[in-house]
């Protein structure tokens, strides 16, 4: 065992320490100090993670046992970490992007009071801690701890500005939606424990491989796990919380709601790829859900006017692509897309943060325009992000998305591929719609805003630049063989993640054809956006289908009518009718009945001797008859 693994516990503990220091000392710490502590602990974790990464790369993974969490008859759960290719890669993404965003935040959140500033960093650190727990856990329970922990931090950070009640509502919505998914996750765990008496990844997967789980079990478990993933990774039907989650500070959106937390579902499924590969039915479901989510979110994104909402729907859509990849069994492509998406989406969120910062909090792109003149670094890095996400060749997104589409084509054929491609085209269209409306043309905001426009400070631009670079080169770890690469990522992940198995691999020729086709179409979409939105004035409300899109297909309203309202009605019915009138009424009714009986019975006590004697005689009669004539 390499020495470095002995220190692995430091990776989560450092952010935890940061959380505690910032949280407990929030009243006494200055902004600089808390910002420094918050960032430094993550950076330290990142450095250790780097060592781990290279260690894993050289010598393979390792399990690190800390202590017994639960040890009772029939169930043994270790508090242990699993460090292998997959988790070490995620460690890097989390701590790496995490440190950048921490750095960015020191500037972005500078207007907050020192107390709130420290609170912000403590939450952020707590989030990193939870996320690390999620990816490092060596069994489903530890993973679940992180899983719920990130949900909690997401809740706390969305509601960071808790004076605003709509933010609080968004926070609640996020948490509750996540909890619905979590229930699925939990049920899967119970099912697992009932069947294999363990939640340890190694045990579960080997048991599954040994066929000690029936097909029903595996399908059920994987479907439930996938339900958990839809919650955390914002898939149909549980995606609606993510756009609302944009209520939180922008760096939070970048870190949690784009780069890391929302990819937890993909991580979990990739981690359990052995299990999911055994459940073709579940894979079919995942494919459909992923594709539908990608398409739906993309369609909504084309008509959103809030800069962060567009990015949010784009995230949902991209997550859909990842699930599409998972559904086709192309786990490596999914993880690859997680990696590249983390770079460019974080970049774009941070860029949008920079824009919002400059606009003094304004988020409506209809009030922007021509910002390129004022904030060149932001604009250029944002453009790089857009190019990457659209899948323009040579940018990172191109490689990952292309592999996903190829996998779809190989597994599900042309039709599905066509739909997926259409979603990809929509991506390019709305991203450039966003870019053109924001950065080109003329400014549409107020004069005061215009006067205030400025490039952001270095603490914000440096992360942008780093991320922009990563967005460009990030794809080169996974150049497919058709393009002359070796797909380093696939090789690295191979001990953990099975590569996609296809009966008849497509030839390179068809691959080239597909790449060419998609690239051409994407460029056409970009041009379309350019034509439409370069000088667009937003002076009329959309109608018809556009309206439906702008109103997000009315999904929120439907949920409200189908779930929230009935739940309230049922609750009130329980409370007012069953509880008060029914059960309590019954209980009190007994009391009332006794009282009533008392009032009636005492009338027998009429005060007259005659009636008393008559009662006695009747009593004598009854008892005599019973004794003498009743033969029971």
């Amino acid at each position: 065992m390499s020495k470095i693994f002995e220190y692995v516990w430091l990776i989560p503990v450092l952010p935890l320490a940061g959380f505690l220091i910032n949280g407990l000392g929030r009243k006494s710490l200055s902004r600089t100090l808390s910002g420094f502590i918050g960032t430094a602990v993550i950076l330290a974790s990142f450095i250790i993670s780097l060592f781990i990464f290279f260690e894993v790369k050289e010598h393979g993974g390792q399990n690190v046992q800390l202590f017994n969490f639960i040890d009772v008859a029939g169930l043994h759960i270790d508090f242990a970490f699993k460090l292998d290719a997959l988790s070490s890669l995620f460690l890097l993404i989390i701590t790496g992007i995490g440190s950048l965003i921490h750095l960015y935040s020191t500037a972005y959140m500078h207007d907050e009071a020192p107390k709130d500033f420290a609170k912000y960093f403590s939450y952020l650190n707590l989030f990193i801690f939870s996320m690390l727990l999620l990816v490092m856990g060596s069994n489903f329970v530890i993973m679940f701890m992180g899983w719920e922990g990130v949900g909690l931090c997401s809740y706390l950070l969305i509601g960071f500005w808790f004076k605003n009640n709509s933010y609080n509502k968004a926070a609640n919505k996020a948490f509750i939606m996540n909890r619905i998914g979590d229930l699925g996750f939990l049920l899967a765990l119970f099912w697992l424990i009932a069947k294999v008496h363990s939640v340890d990844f190694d045990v579960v997967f080997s048991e599954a491989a040994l066929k000690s789980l029936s097909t029903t079990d595996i399908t059920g478990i994987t479907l439930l796990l996938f339900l958990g993933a839809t919650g955390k990774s914002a898939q149909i039907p549980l995606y609606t919380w993510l756009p609302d989650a944009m209520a939180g500070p922008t760096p939070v959106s970048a870190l949690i709601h784009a780069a890391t937390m929302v990819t937890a579902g993909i991580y979990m499924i990739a981690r359990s790829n052995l299990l999911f590969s055994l459940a073709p039915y579940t894979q079919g479901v995942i494919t459909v859900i992923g594709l539908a989510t990608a398409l739906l979110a993309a369609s909504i994104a084309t008509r959103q006017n809030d800069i962060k909402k567009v990015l949010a729907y784009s995230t949902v859509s991209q997550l859909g692509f990842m699930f599409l990849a998972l559904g086709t069994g192309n786990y490596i492509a999914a993880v690859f897309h997680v990696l590249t998406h983390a770079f460019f989406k974080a970049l774009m969120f941070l860029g949008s943060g920079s824009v919002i910062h400059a606009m003094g909090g304004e988020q409506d792109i209809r009030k922007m325009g021509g910002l390129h003149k004022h904030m060149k670094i932001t604009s250029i890095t944002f453009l790089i992000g857009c190019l990457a996400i659209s899948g323009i060749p040579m940018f990172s997104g191109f490689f990952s998305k292309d592999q996903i589409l190829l996998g779809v084509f190989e597994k599900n054929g042309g039709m599905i591929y066509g739909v997926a491609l259409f979603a990809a085209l929509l991506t390019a269209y709305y991203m450039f719609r966003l870019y053109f409306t924001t950065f080109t043309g003329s400014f549409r905001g107020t004069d005061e805003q215009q006067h205030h426009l400025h490039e952001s400070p270095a603490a914000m631009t440096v992360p942008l630049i780093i991320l922009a670079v990563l967005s460009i080169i990030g794809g080169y770890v996974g150049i497919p063989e058709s393009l002359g690469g070796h797909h380093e990522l696939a090789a690295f992940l191979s001990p953990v993640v099975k590569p996609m198995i296809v009966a008849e691999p497509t030839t390179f020729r068809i691959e080239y054809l597909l790449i060419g086709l998609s690239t051409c179409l994407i460029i056409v979409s970009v041009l379309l956006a350019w034509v439409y939105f370069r000088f667009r004035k937003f002076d009329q409300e959309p109608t018809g289908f556009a309206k439906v899109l702008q109103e997000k297909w009315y999904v929120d309203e439907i949920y409200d009518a189908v779930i929230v309202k009935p739940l309230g009605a049922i609750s009130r019915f329980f409370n007012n009718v069953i509880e008060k009138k029914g059960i309590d009424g019954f209980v009190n009714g007994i009391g009332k009945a006794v009282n009533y009986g008392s009032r009636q019975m005492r009338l027998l006590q009429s005060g007259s001797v005659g009636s008393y004697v008559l009662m006695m005689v009747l009593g004598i009669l009854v008892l005599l008859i019973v004794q003498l004539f009743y033969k029971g």
Partner: protein
Amino acid sequence: MNAIIITAVWGIVMMFSGVFIKSKTMPKYLAIAGLLLAFVLNCSEQVSEKVLFEIDPHGMFEFSAFGYMFNNIAFICTLLFFLLNGRDIEKVGSNVSEYFALLFFILCGVSIATSFSNLLMLFISIEIMSIPLYILTGSDKRNLKSNEAALKYFLMGVFSTGIMLMGIAFIYGGNANASFSISQINFGSTGGIPVLLAIGMVLLFIAMCFKVSAAPFHFWVPDVYDGAPTVFTSFMATIVKTAAFVAFIRLFKTSFGSGSVQPQWQLLVVIVTVATLLFGNITAVFQQSVKRMLAYSSIAQAGFMLFALFAVSEQGTNRSSMAYEAVLIYSAAYCLAGIGIFAILIRMNDYTVDGFNGLAKKQPLLAVTALIFLLSLTGIPLTAGFTGKFYMLMAAMHNGHFIWLIILAVLCTAVSAYYYFRIIQAMFFKAPSETAIQVQDITFSFKLLLAITSLLIILVGLFPELLLQWLFR
């Protein structure tokens, strides 16, 4: 035998003391002395089996540990009663020594009731207990309620005597042994009950039900208890009633057959028990006057005591010793608590529940002792009342027959909490009314005695076997 003689003689002594002693307080002390004497002699007879006068009872009596124990309980409770309520007896009217004489005669009747073994003695003991009570009930001559109660009690009492005698006559007629001895009743060999015996026993049963105030023969109870001077209600509702019960169970055990005959009475017992439990408990709920409520509650308590009969009527294993134990403990518990709560009630100015409002603030000790008495009547653990109920249920329950009856009984106990706790609520949780004096004549010795009574209740509640030890000797 000692108990019977001493109480009778002391009754006469008390009677004459009225002639020679003019002091109004003196008879009380004399009575206490007599009671102590009776207690000591009864104990010594129980321990050494020595009697003052060697008399051949000719089969009229049969003394048993059970009877002695009950006498002891009755004497101790009466002692407490005299100590607590002596002054109140003096207040009832001008014939103080006569009241004490009558009380002693009643005790004589009680002593006979615990040891009779002949229907004639049963009849005489019941009458000796009843006739003085008619008088005591009417002793508050200026009070029309007292007059009314006395007449009602008298008329109904004589009526029930008629029923009882008719029953005895039929039993005699149906008894091939031609005897009045309770242990020599010949049921023949058919396994059934001869009709004449059956008629007689039902009638006798009903008359005894009347005396222990079992429904539907209880109607005299609320009116009489309500109308009688409270101090005598206390005596009548506790000691006399339990004594009648002891007589009842003695009779039921010995002369209502044995073996397979006994269970044939079970249905009768069940009907009466159910009626009594329901009637007593439910009617008590609505009462506003505490005195009347206690009257109804005494019916309810009788319902619980009827389980002893039920236990006796169970076939198979020997339930009767258990039933006797249960009756003893229940009687002790009920008498102590009853005397205690009545003693407090007597000193209240207002007999309604509202009269108790805020007593805890003004007289904490009184309220706490009242609390213990009421808890005991309800049957909360740590008090004798619980132990009594516990033994009673234990005696009654053996093989799950009529389990619904027992469940009904415990549910009725829950109902009883309703009316007993109304007083507790008034005492502890309601504000006292500003007007006038709530209680009167609260002396230190009164409080001390109340405390002793409550301690006795708790002692019996914790260590009931101290009482029973005599039986197991």
